[in-house]
C-alpha cells in the first residue's frame, strides 16, 4: 500500500435540487486514525460518508480513498472499505451466517475463507447463538453488530461508520463502542459520524466539526475544548423565571455570554474555584435559591455551541436530504 492518506477529500460539494448538502468540504484521515465527523442533523455527515463509500457522486470537488478516486476508481475503493450505515443493511429473511456468507461471496472471497471468517466474526460479536436464526428475530443491537460484522468480512483497511449507535439502547451502545475500540486497536482506519458529542469524545482522537456542509473546526477533543477557553460554571435554580434573574446577578462573575436552558444557566468563567464563591455570593445577594452549582471543564457541547451558535442536538428545521428513504431522494 502507498503512503497516501486513507481519506483525502478536497472541496467536495453536493447538491440535492436546491439544497446544498455539502459546500466545500475538506477532509484528511491518516492511516490508522479514528476520525469523528461531528455535526447536527442536516450538517452533511451522511452525504460525505456516502460519497467516500462510492454510493453517491459528488457534484464537485475531488476525493480519494486509499489513494483511489471515489468516482473513477469506485471498484478499487470498494475493495478497501467497509461501510455500516444508519440502517442495518442486512437481509431480514436470511440468518446471520447466511448474510455473512452472501456478502463474503459477493466480495469474491474463497468459500473456505468466508466460512472461517464468518465463524470468527460471529464469535467476536456475540452472535454465536443467533447465527442460524433469521435476522427478523434479532434485536436492534444484534442487527447492528451483524451489520458491522458484514462490513468486516473482507478485512477492510478503512471502515466508515455512519452514526453507528443511533437508535440503540445504552447497553447496546456501550457494546458497540467496545467493538469499535477493539477494531481501532487492531489498526483499522475509522471514519465515524455522530451527532453525539460524547460518542466522538469516547471513540475518536480527532474530531472534525461540520455544519452547513463544511468544516468549522477540527482537532483533538482537548484542542477543541481549549479553543473556547477555560472552565464553565453551571447553576441550576428553582424555576425558569429565576434563571433569567440569576444570569443577570452573575454578570460580574462570568466572562462570556451565559446560556440559559430552562432553569439552568451555563457560562464561561475564568479564575478557578474562587469564581464559585463569587457566584454564590452574588446570587445570595439577590436572594436567589440555588438548587445546584458546579464548575466543569467545557464539553464538546460547549464547543459546538460556541462554534455554531446552536446546540448539536438541536434539530434544525433544515431538510435532511441525506436521510434516505430508498434511492428516490429528491
Amino acid at each position, binding site marked *: 500500500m502507498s503512503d497516501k492518506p486513507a481519506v483525502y477529500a478536497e472541496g467536495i460539494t453536493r447538491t440535492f435540487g436546491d439544497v446544498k448538502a455539502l459546500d466545500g468540504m475538506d477532509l484528511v484521515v491518516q492511516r490508522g486514525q479514528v476520525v469523528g465527523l461531528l455535526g447536527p442533523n442536516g450538517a452533511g455527515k451522511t452525504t460525505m460518508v456516502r460519497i467516500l463509500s462510492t454510493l453517491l457522486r459528488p457534484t464537485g470537488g475531488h476525493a480519494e480513498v486509499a489513494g483511489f478516486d471515489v468516482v473513477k476508481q469506485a471498484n478499487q475503493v470498494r475493495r478497501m472499505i467497509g461501510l455500516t450505515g444508519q440502517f442495518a443493511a442486512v437481509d431480514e429473511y436470511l440468518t446471520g451466517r*447466511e448474510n455473512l456468507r*452472501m456478502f463474503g461471496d*459477493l466480495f*469474491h472471497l*474463497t468459500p473456505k475463507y468466508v466460512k472461517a471468517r464468518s465463524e470468527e466474526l460471529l464469535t467476536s*460479536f456475540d452472535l454465536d447463538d443467533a447465527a442460524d436464526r433469521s435476522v427478523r428475530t434479532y434485536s436492534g443491537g444484534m442487527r447492528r453488530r451483524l451489520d458491522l460484522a458484514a462490513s468486516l468480512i473482507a478485512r477492510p483497511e478503512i471502515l466508515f461508520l455512519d452514526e453507528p449507535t443511533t437508535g440503540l439502547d445504552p447497553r447496546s451502545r456501550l457494546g458497540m463502542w467496545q467493538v469499535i475500540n*477493539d477494531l481501532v486497536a*487492531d489498526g483499522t482506519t475509522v471514519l465515524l459520524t455522530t451527532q453525539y458529542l460524547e460518542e466522538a469524545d469516547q471513540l475518536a482522537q480527532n474530531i472534525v466539526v461540520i455544519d452547513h456542509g463544511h468544516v468549522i473546526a477540527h482537532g483533538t477533543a482537548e484542542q477543541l475544548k481549549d479553543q473556547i477557553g477555560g472552565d464553565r460554571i453551571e447553576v441550576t435554580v428553582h424555576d425558569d423565571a429565576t434563571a433569567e434573574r440569576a444570569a443577570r446577578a452573575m454578570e460580574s462573575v462570568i466572562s462570556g455570554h451565559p446560556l440559559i436552558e430552562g432553569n439552568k444557566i451555563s457560562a464561561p468563567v475564568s479564575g478557578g474555584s474562587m469564581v464559585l464563591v463569587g457566584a454564590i455570593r452574588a446570587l445570595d445577594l439577590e436572594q436567589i435559591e440555588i438548587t445546584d452549582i458546579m464548575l466543569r471543564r467545557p464539553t464538546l457541547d460547549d464547543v459546538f455551541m460556541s462554534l455554531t451558535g446552536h446546540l448539536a442536538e438541536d434539530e434544525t428545521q433544515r431538510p435532511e436530504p441525506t436521510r434516505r428513504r430508498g434511492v428516490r*431522494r429528491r
Partner: protein
Amino acid sequence: MSAITVGRPVALRRPIYGWALHDGFVVARRNLIQTIRVPELLFFSLVQPVIFVLLFAYVFGGAIPIPGDGASPADAANAYRQYLMPGIFGQTVAFAAAASTVGLAEDMSRGIIDRFRALPMSPSAVLLGRTFADAVRQILVLAVLSITGLLVGWRINNGLFSALLAYALLLFFAYTVAWVGAWIGLSVPNPETANTAGLAWLFPLTFLSNAFVPISSMPDWLQPIAAYNPISTLVLATRELFGNPTGIQPHYWSLDHAALYTLISCAVLIGIFAPLAVRKYRNATSR
C-alpha cells in the same frame, strides 16, 4: 466481546464463468431463500392461478366455444379445459413479472441495497439474481398448476419431450417478463406503487390474447393486436407442444410460427429491457 484477530490477507476467488453470473447466482440464492422463509407469499402466488383454473374450467367453460371442437356440451366443456390450461400457464408466467416489480422496489427501499453497492460486485447482479430467482420460482408454480389441470381433465397428448419444451418456453417467457417487471420496479417511487404498477399492464396484456378466448372470436380490428401479442404466440406454441386444441387460427405470420415468434419476442424484450433496467439501477443508485 473479544478482539478481532487480524490474520492472513483476504483470499480472492478466481472467476470461473464471469463475475456478473457468479454474483447473480449469489443474489438469486438469497431471493430463493427468502421464498422458502416466507411460505405465505409462495402460497398465495399459487392460489391465484389455481383459482383461475377452477373458475374458467367450471364457470366459463361451457360458455366459451372453441371453433372446430366438440359437438355435445360435455365435449365442448372438456375441449375448453384442454384449450384453457396453456392459457392459464401463459397468464401465470406473465404475472410473475409483478413479483419482480414488487421485490425489486422493496429491495431498493431497504438499506441492503447500499451494502450491495458498496461491494466490489457486478452492478447487474442484483437484477440478474432477481429475474433468475423469479423465473425459477415459476417451476414450482407450473408444477402445482399442472397437477390442478390434470385433476380437472387437462392432458399432455404429445409426449414428454414436447411437454418439456413447452415448460422450457414458458420459463423463458417468465424470465423475459421478469426483466420488464424489474424495469418497472426501478421506475416506481416506492413499494406501494409497485404493487399497482406491477399489475396494471398485465391484465390488458394477458386478456388481449388467445389465453382464454379464440382470436377468431374477436372483432377484426383487434385480431392483429392479439395475434402479435407474444402471450398469444406463447400460449399457441404451448398448446401445440402439449397437443391441446388450438382452435382455428386466423392467418398471421406470428401465429403460423408461434414458437419462433415467441423466442424472437423474448430475445427482443430482454434486449430492450435488460439494458434499460441495468441503466436505471445504476442511475437510481448513484445520484
